[in-house]
């Protein structure tokens, strides 16, 4: 999986690859994302391509969030489709993550 990233000032925007983020690929993706989880990193995960996320995928996102929070960084999400949004609401994670409709809105929340 190649991960597309875009850097804007000190903010890194990462497009999560593939159509699904589930038990089948969460582990691999976690390894690939590891180098980007730098202390104090300011991240945006763009989920636009994802049509489906399960609890394993959610677990991966939570682990990333905890990692950057612990080092003074931040992780914001954007581009959640209805199904993914439904998962977040079902397990109340929309109250844990900062979620934006579009990449632009997410950038603006970082003040860029």
């Amino acid at each position, binding site marked *: 999986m190649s991960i597309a990233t875009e850097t804007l000032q000190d903010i890194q925007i990462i497009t999560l690859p593939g159509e699904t983020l589930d038990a089948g690929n969460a582990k691999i993706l976690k390894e690939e994302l590891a180098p980007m989880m730098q202390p104090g990193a300011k991240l945006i995960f763009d989920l636009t391509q994802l049509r*489906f996320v399960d609890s394993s995928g959610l677990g991966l996102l939570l682990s990333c969030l905890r990692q950057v929070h612990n080092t003074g960084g931040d992780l914001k999400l954007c581009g959640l489709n209805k199904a993914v949004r439904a998962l977040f609401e*079902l397990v109340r994670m929309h109250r844990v993550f900062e979620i934006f409709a579009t990449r632009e809105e997410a950038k603006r929340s970082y003040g860029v």
Partner: protein
Amino acid sequence: MNGASQLTPSLPPTGQLGQLRSFLLSRAAAAGLASQVLVEIYPHSDIPPGCLWLESDGDSSLVLQLAPNATLPPSAVPALASAWKDLHEAEKRELLLLEELAVDWESLQALYDLSADLQSDLSHTEMLRRILERATAPVRDSSAILLLERSGTLVPFSWFNTQAPGEFSSITGLTGRVVREQHAIVLNDPVRIRAVAGLESSWADAASVALAPITTPQRGLFGIIALWSRHPESSFNSHLVRLLEALGQQAALIVESDRLGRTLRESERLKQEIQIGSLIQQTLLIGEPPRHHPYFDIATMNMPSQTVDGDFMDMFQRCDDGLEVLVGDVMGKGIPAALIGAATKGQVLRAIAETGHAVAPGAVSLDGIINRAAARMTPHLQAIDRFVTLNFALVDPQRNTVQWVDCGHTATLHYHAASAEATQMKGEGLPMGVLESEVYSESSAPFEPGDTLLFYSDGVTEASNASGDMFGEDRLAAVLVEHAPHGAAAVLDAVRRRVVEFSGSATFADDFTCLAVRLLPRGERPVYSSSVTLDSTLSDLPRLYAWAGTFLAAPETDIEPEAADLLLLALTESVTNIMRHGYEGASGKPIAIFAAACLDRLVFEIEDEGIPWTYEPAPDPAFDGSKSGGFGLFIIDQVMDRRLHLRLPNGRNRLQLTRFRNHQNPTENTP
């Protein structure tokens, strides 16, 4: 017929009661008394007057009861009583034989170690011949013979250096004396020998003769070893007698080990018989229930016991949507019972084919079918002194009725959805094979949507606990009432768990056969269904998405896209749980999924062959995001209204998930 005549001190093993009852009825039938006697169990305090008391345990008695207006000939009562006694004695003999075998086997082991000679590959005939050879070795011009007892006489089994001898008496002569005195004798006087030997011509010209008994502690004396010499100067001393005694011991060992070997081979044969029997049972006797029937929810369970029983059951779908159910039990065990079961099933099927299809729907004559089958079976059954109990029922989903013909089978339980009660469905018929003149008639009752029939063999209700109490029909009815609303498989799973819990054992003395049929309420009848089998590897998840996507988007499934998203999520969580925990990550194992869209609900059944996973309601996950896991079960329970974990009789696990179309209720978890 007044008072109680005491025959035996205790009730037979509870698992056998049904069979004993059947046995007595068959004897009663043979005496022409079938319609006049009943074998019933009553509490001690409640035995009706005029009963013949047979057996009792702590609180109840098994009695022979006269039917109203019965006119028993005076000879009948002692005849039945002695039949009862016969049966008991046969059982006792069997028990003794088993005990004896166990004891012998131990002593045999010890003796085997004594002699290296015996561990050779020689046949027992050859070994016995060598013993005789060894006996004659120290004595000049000597002969030896080994006699074994066969029905009262002593028959030569092996001999050395002599002509083929005739039989020997176990009463007279030298051999008769050894039998009487049970120890070795020796004679060194030719005149005396001829006087005592009488007709035992083998040693008529002997100068010396010695005989030693062949005995074991278990069997006593069962043979003699004899040694004699014609040499005029021979004289047998006590050393020679000791040798002969020792050789007699060895001979005893060889003969016994051969006998036990044969017994052992016989028990191997029995084991094989059980295997053949269960094969017959699986292929001929126990039918596969139709799955995902448009009107019925059907589940079956058959756990064969350590012996072969003749339990059989099958279901036939009629073209008018009716479901015919046949359950039965052959009296007796072993391959013959299994074959009789198969034959009975065959005759009922044949009668269905001949009559059933000729009549218009709604005018089906069940009793016609059974009477026809009985006419063909009864003469054969009587010829071999066997009989069959069975129940043949037809459930009609168009008219909401159940009709049945009962041939002395255990009562069927009928769960009524409207009142949440269970009642007995029983007829009056005698077992098939008891009476040639028996005419069977059918009964009928209303059978409403949600109602459930539970057919069972007596192995279920007669499963007993350590203190000898039987599981009984009341407990079975309680399980039925509790679980019937959750479907046929849930009822059988609960029956199995409760009986195992009750008896404290997962193996049963009798075959454990159950069949549950639930008439689906209109809202639960599938209008559209689909199934898929996945491999247990995570890389097969895309196939789940493709299949579920198609099912959930089908117009017949008729759900909102939002609900479809969540249902796919819950299915994925269930399947990955099985892959990770049920199969512990192993690939190449099946995960079979069935989905049905019904009027008022969606039902998903996910079956696997892995480790069963947790029944408990899931604890809430960490909603503050502090933990990455623990969401799976929570998601399933939010999306689904019901999560049932069943252990199916075929060893599979079934996760049954239900979502009502009016989904909003908090989740309900049933263990």
